Structure formats: C-alpha cells, structure tokens
C-alpha cells in the first residue's frame, strides 16, 4: 500500500525523464534508403510516362491528315459558284463548303465557263502568245 508520501516521491522521480538513446543505424539508414529507393522508382515511373506522352503528342501533332482529295475536288467542281467570282459569291461558297480546303479547291478548280465579253480577251491567253524578252 502506497502512502501519500510515496506518491509524492514517485511524482518527484517522474520529473526526471530518461535520456533518449541514439537512433538505431538500421532504422536511420535502412529506412531512409528504402524510402529513397521507393521515391526513385516513383520518379522514374513518372518520367517514363511523361516521355511516352511527349512522344505520342509529338507524332499526333506532326501527322499529316490526308483528306479525300478526289471527293473534295468532285464536290468543289459540282458546287463551286458559277459565273464571275465576286466577294459575295466567294463568301457564300466559303459558308456552305464542307471544309476550308474544299472551298479553296472549289475556287481553284471551278470551270471557266463564263464567256468573255465581245472584244475582250483573256490576259493569260494574250501573255501566252507574246514572246517576252527578259
């Protein structure tokens, strides 16, 4: 049976805290090295994923999309504005064309069916006949 004196003395003793020991080398080195190995493997995995993503994005960015050129040209020839090309007809054609490329193709490949007015001739035809000395 402990007396109050004993308890008081015990409390006095408990005020003295034992000094902590030095850390165990295996806990300090082993755990740290295991942690660094695990961190290293994580970093390597992240780096590998980043490289793969970069390669994929690079190839996707450089990939040449080859459109169905024959189809677009056929469409352009069918639907390109007839008659002389004006800003209005070009705008209308750009608005209705399935793609920008199809619109440009349509303007480039449209047939020159409109006849030239009387007395006028094509500049290209005239230039092709002349012998120009440079």
């Amino acid at each position: 049976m402990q007396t109050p004196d004993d308890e008081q003395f015990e409390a006095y003793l408990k005020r003295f805290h034992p000094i902590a020991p030095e850390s165990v080398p295996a806990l300090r080195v082993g755990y740290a090295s295991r942690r660094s190995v695990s961190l290293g493997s994580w970093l390597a995995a992240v780096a590998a994923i980043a490289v793969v993503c970069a390669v994929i994005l690079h190839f996707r960015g450089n990939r040449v999309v080859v459109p169905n050129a024959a189809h677009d040209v056929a469409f352009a020839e069918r639907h390109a504005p007839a008659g002389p090309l004006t800003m209005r007809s070009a705008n209308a054609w750009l608005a209705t064309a399935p793609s920008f490329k199809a619109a440009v193709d349509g303007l480039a490949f449209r047939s020159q069916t409109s006849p030239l007015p009387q007395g006028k001739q094509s500049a290209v035809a005239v230039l092709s006949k002349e012998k120009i000395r440079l």
Partner: protein
Amino acid sequence: MGKTNRNIAEIEVLYRRHGAALLLFASAISGDRGRAQDALHHVFLKAIENGSLSRAINKKAYLFACVRNAVLNDAKRQDRNISLDIESSWFNAPERDYAGEQNLRRALGDLPADQREVIVLHVWGDFTFSEIGELLGISSNTAASRYRYALAKLRGSMSAKENSCADSR
C-alpha cells in the same frame, strides 16, 4: 507501403516511444551506458530482421524482456561483476536540477540490482506490478514489495545526500 516497411515504421515508433525508458532500464541492469546502448540496438536490429515484434501481444513488455535478456547474456559472456557506471547522465535534469539528477543516479546505483530493476520498470517504464512480475518471472506481490523497499531506500539515500550537500555548503 509493404509489410516490411510497415514493420519498420512500427518499430521506429516503438523505439521513439520507449527507447529512453529501455535505455535507462538497460543501464540500470548493465551498469554501463555503452553496453546498455549496444544491447538496445541489438534488440531492435533483431526485431527488424526476424519480425518477432509483430507477433508479440504486449510489445512494450516484450521489448523490456528482450533488453533484459540481451544485457544479462552480454554480462554472462563478459563473465564480469557488474559495477554501475554512474558518471554519465541518465536523466534530463528538470529545471536544470543537475545536482538532483546526480543525486538520483547515485541513489539508484546504491540500490540492489533486483530493486533497481523494479523501480525503473514501475516509475519510468509505467509497468504495473503484475506486468513486472511477468517480465521478471516473479509474483506481483514480490514485485510490489521490492518496489516499496526500493522507494524507501531511494528516498532515504537521496535525502541523506541532500542533507550532506546542504551541510557541506
């Protein structure tokens, strides 16, 4: 986190929590701070190696028992009588009471080894008398009576030293 890493983390927590009391206990048995430290490291390294700590039900009691065995085995190997090295500090002096710390250390050194064990286990290891009985292989009544004797001797020894210090001043 793998099982091994979890074990190491758990051992690290136990070392931080009980390391100081274990070192004091080992010092109180071995009498040598360096040997006590070695015994403590030996026990924890073995615990990491063989994972025996994870199977123990009362981990704290298991650690104290292991440290005691390690110190006693070491003493047996050295085949020497243990004399207590009380020159190196065992405690952090509260409120810079260095004289009190030295006084306590010397008073502990004057105790018989079996009483010293019990007092360290109860006061700084926070073990009950039945736990101490299990750990040391004695009955809880024996542990309690050893404690009472130890406490009385310690108090007498410390007050005598305090008085002698006061008289010499």
